[in-house]
């Protein structure tokens, strides 16, 4: 690939992702409304799509206030980290054959590393806000991330074992005959739960927990700084959905009447819908329940899955 092609891919991915993140405002509000027997925003523009414009403009014109008691530099830095780290994770997503920003041979590890970095925005944002609710949110975010990061990584190791590579393109290619959802259902299940916790979406929005902590770590944020956290969350949903598709649902693979990119987008949007359905249906668990569930159930499950996968892989090889 030439340098120009690379630049076009980067610009294209950025453009599409940021638009998706903004468009998800509308998607989420409409879908939530439909599942709650309402109609949702349907006035501005066709199907209410211009609500995205209205929301964005509103965010831009809101007063961008920094509390006098906040640690100013870190307060400003924190929202940038979440968007930055999530966007960096997208670097390794194979959207279609040859449409990938960086075809790293340690792609999966890079994704895990970058998604772990995202927690810094929560911790720093909560810490710099100098507000007890924000700090509590940050603390919860940190321990939730540590707990769920562990088996998020472990749940993917089964896939890596079956493929024999950390390269995302190779993982998708390895699913030519059979998607990994068939051979690694437990891995998918655990990755899905960990992914919800990773993006701190409902029902695992414990760092935010509107009803307990007001808005948790971003309680003091306003204007476009809050908007960055917002975009970061939507990008996170898109990222986890794209990862699930690439790792377990055959990525761009699919019948040839649609181009590979379309298959990838379709599958990703399906999982984004599932994320929103989760928000519409499930209540938030208590903080101790979440951590207990993680360490006492999911970790043993994922370790057992890892051992069984390893044993079967060895046996299949005839070793």
């Amino acid at each position, binding site marked *: 690939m030439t340098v120009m092609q690379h630049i076009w891919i980067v610009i294209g991915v950025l453009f599409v992702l940021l638009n998706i993140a903004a468009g998800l405002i509308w998607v989420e509000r409409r879908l939530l409304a*439909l*599942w*709650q*027997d*309402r*109609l949702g925003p349907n006035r501005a523009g066709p199907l209410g799509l211009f609500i995205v414009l209205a929301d964005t403009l509103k965010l831009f014109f809101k007063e961008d206030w920094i509390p006098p008691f906040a640690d100013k530099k870190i307060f400003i830095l924190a929202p940038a980290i979440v968007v930055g780290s999530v966007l960096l994770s997208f670097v390794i997503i194979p959207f279609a054959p040859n449409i990938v920003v960086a075809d790293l041979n340690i792609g999966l590890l890079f994704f895990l590393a970058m998604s772990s970095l995202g927690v810094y925005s929560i911790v720093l944002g909560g810490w710099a806000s100098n507000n007890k609710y924000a700090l509590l949110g940050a603390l919860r975010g940190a321990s939730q991330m540590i707990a769920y990061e562990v088996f998020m990584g472990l749940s993917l190791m089964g896939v890596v074992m079956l493929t024999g590579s950390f390269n995302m393109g190779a993982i998708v290619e390895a699913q030519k005959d059979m998607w990994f959802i068939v051979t690694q259902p437990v891995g998918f299940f655990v990755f899905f739960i960990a992914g919800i916790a990773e993006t701190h979406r409902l029902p695992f929005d414990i760092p935010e927990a509107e009803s307990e902590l007001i808005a948790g770590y971003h309680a003091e944020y306003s204007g476009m700084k809050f908007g960055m956290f917002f975009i970061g969350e939507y990008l996170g949903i898109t990222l986890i959905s794209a990862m699930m598709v690439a790792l377990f649902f055959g990525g761009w693979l699919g019948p040839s009447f649609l181009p590979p990119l379309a298959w990838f987008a379709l599958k990703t949007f399906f999982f984004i819908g599932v994320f929103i*359905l*989760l928000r*519409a*249906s*499930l209540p938030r668990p208590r903080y101790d*329940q979440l951590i*207990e*569930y993680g360490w*006492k*159930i999911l970790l043993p499950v994922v370790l057992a899955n890892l051992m069984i996968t390893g044993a079967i892989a060895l046996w299949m090889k005839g070793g």
Partner: protein
Amino acid sequence: MRQSTLPGGGVKIMLSNLRTMWLVFLHLFHKKETIQYPEEKIKLHPRWRGRIVLTKDPDGGERCVGCYLCAVACPVDCIALQATEDENGRRYPEFFRINFSRCIFCGYCEEACPTYAIQLIPDFEMAEYNRQNLVFEKEDLLINSQGKYPGYNFYKVAGMDAGVKEKGEGDNEEPVVDIKSLLP
């Protein structure tokens, strides 16, 4: 209490969560509760307490006799009026003013009114950009209708002569006794 730690309990919770998600998903096909307001109006019942009006009797005369009972009954003091009389001795309000920015639509004025003049009707679309426009004068309140009590005319049943009927000619009223006659 600590059910979630048990493997069996955990599976049960998981299945119930999946069932919840499925049931919520089915709401996609349910009838929506939203009423698309400006195009689609809500159904208001006849006795719904909304905008206040002053009604007229079947002859087209004002029903209000300026008795001040509504102004007294009003808990937020939003009604102001001044009674006066015409040449026949029939009382009517010289001005009648309701400040709808204060009105709480409790309906006490309607209950207090002895002549069915003041009535609350099923209409709530009275938003204004200018607060002063919410002060309704008599010409804004008076409607050319008998409202909820058609056929009722206070001066037809009241004993006094106010140019509507002669004495003793009202509904359910006996003729006036001629005090100068000896006949029974």
